[in-house]
């Protein structure tokens, strides 16, 4: 169980996270919200890239807050960051070799099987990939760490619709490998089809949490918190 308890993050005067609490169990949890509500900061704070001023993050009871990012990663938290952040100097295959560990559910051959496009591009450098290919690479990089928790910050961003469908399939299968998924999304359809529950973030707080199915049908809540028409991509 990943637990976030009363987490606050400040950048100078700006109070970005204002006491976020959430629990992530077996079932995937999605976090939705408009731009600038603190979703990316929350992902960074869980992965240790952003320092929290109050509150804590724990994984199976052990405190993660305050640890160096690589220690948090080794405890079993993988991040698919916003903007993908693949390494321009590394080829596709080098990215995978960098993180691959023996004895996990995800192996390099399985990644190539799941994303055949990456197998075709295995010797291409990080700068020669399209946005969608970089996104698949960033997701594969996280999967290969065989983490307990995978935090994804807008994985569907910039992907063609057919690839988004493929991605939804991959994400829905994560619990079978024992991975827990925290999915930050702007794409309502991805969030509601992958996650059991959806939390909505407004100005640095979780405003409300509801079953994904309920949100999918509740156009009033969608309009109020997300400013989207049903199923639309904001």
């Amino acid at each position, binding site marked *: 169980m990943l637990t976030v308890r009363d987490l606050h993050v400040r950048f100078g005067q700006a109070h970005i996270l204002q006491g976020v609490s959430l629990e992530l169990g077996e079932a995937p949890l999605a976090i939705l919200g408009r731009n600038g509500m603190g979703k990316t900061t929350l992902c960074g704070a869980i992965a240790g890239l952003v320092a929290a001023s109050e509150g804590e993050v724990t994984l199976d009871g052990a405190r993660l807050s305050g640890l160096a990012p*690589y220690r948090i*990663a080794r405890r079993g938290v993988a991040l698919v960051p916003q903007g993908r*952040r693949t*390494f321009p100097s590394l080829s596709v295959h080098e990215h995978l070799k960098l*993180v691959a560990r023996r004895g996990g559910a995800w192996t390099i051959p399985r990644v190539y099987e799941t994303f055949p496009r990456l197998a075709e591009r295995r010797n291409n450098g990080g700068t020669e990939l399209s946005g969608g290919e970089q996104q698949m690479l960033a997701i594969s*990089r996280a999967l290969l760490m065989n983490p307990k928790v995978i935090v994804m910050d807008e994985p569907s961003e910039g992907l063609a619709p057919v690839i988004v469908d493929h991605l939804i399939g991959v994400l829905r299968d994560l619990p079978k490998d024992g991975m827990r998924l925290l999915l930050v999304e702007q794409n309502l359809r991805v969030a509601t089809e992958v996650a059991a529950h959806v939390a909505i973030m407004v100005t640095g707080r979780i405003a409300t949490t509801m079953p994904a199915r309920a949100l999918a049908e509740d156009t009033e809540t969608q309009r109020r918190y997300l400013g989207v028409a049903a199923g639309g991509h904001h």
Partner: protein
Amino acid sequence: MGANDRMELAATIVLNGLTLAALYFIVASGFSLIFGLMRVVNMAHGTLYLVAGYVGYAVFEPLYDQDLWWAWYAGLAAGVLAAAVFGALLQQLLLGWMQGQELRQALVTIGISIIAADQILAIYGGNPRQFFAPDAIFGSTQVPLVGGYPTFRLVQIGVAVAVGVALWLLLNRTRLGMMIRAGVDDREMLGACGVNVPLVGVAVFALGAALCGLGGVIGSTAQPLAMGQDGRFLLISLVVVIVGGMGSVTGTAVGAILVGLAEQLGQAMFPTYSVVLTFVMMVAVLALRPQGILGRA
């Protein structure tokens, strides 16, 4: 002066320039490597040259007095090791705590270089000293166009080429190299991938310092080792990487060759103002291509 003499002079100047460039490359490649990953402008880089030279000499001298053929190699190993340990400690004990604070790191390393230079003076005294290379790489070799040329200077070129190839292999063919390249791109994300970035940093610092140490012993075999060499080699490292491009092995090689040739050409053509030529080149590069000839924007 006949055409043959002019030819010989030109060839000698070029060869002198290249041998000097070889030494500059060995020293500056370590500087560039450290900057590339750590973003530390290590103002104590020249100090590593002195540390390697003096510690290496302290090991070399008694062995040489006993006529042992491996005295020079032992001095070389000791000098390189001393520089590597010094560099690793510098990163682990001081610079690691101020990651990302470039001005503070620059000031701390300047402080270290002043303290270290005084300590070296206190321990070893101010007399210049010079290694004697083993017989196999001493003496002179016939070079076409140039005639007799010091063998050790040719060895210097060979070592520089070997260092360049080894660095390329390390960066492009090993796991550590993969981590270094990824860290140059995005240190934070490398950490989020579970890589112990501070440890990689210490390894890179030790490696960069070892290269400078290698340059220190080799340079102190070709020319005398004395106080003040630290400032000289720091300045040269800065000029070389500014001209060639920070953080690129090929760029460092190009920068070293240009600076080495410019220095020798200047000394032959207009000895009084030869120093100016190097800096004119640096200013020109900064004006036209501030990231360096092969640097990334």
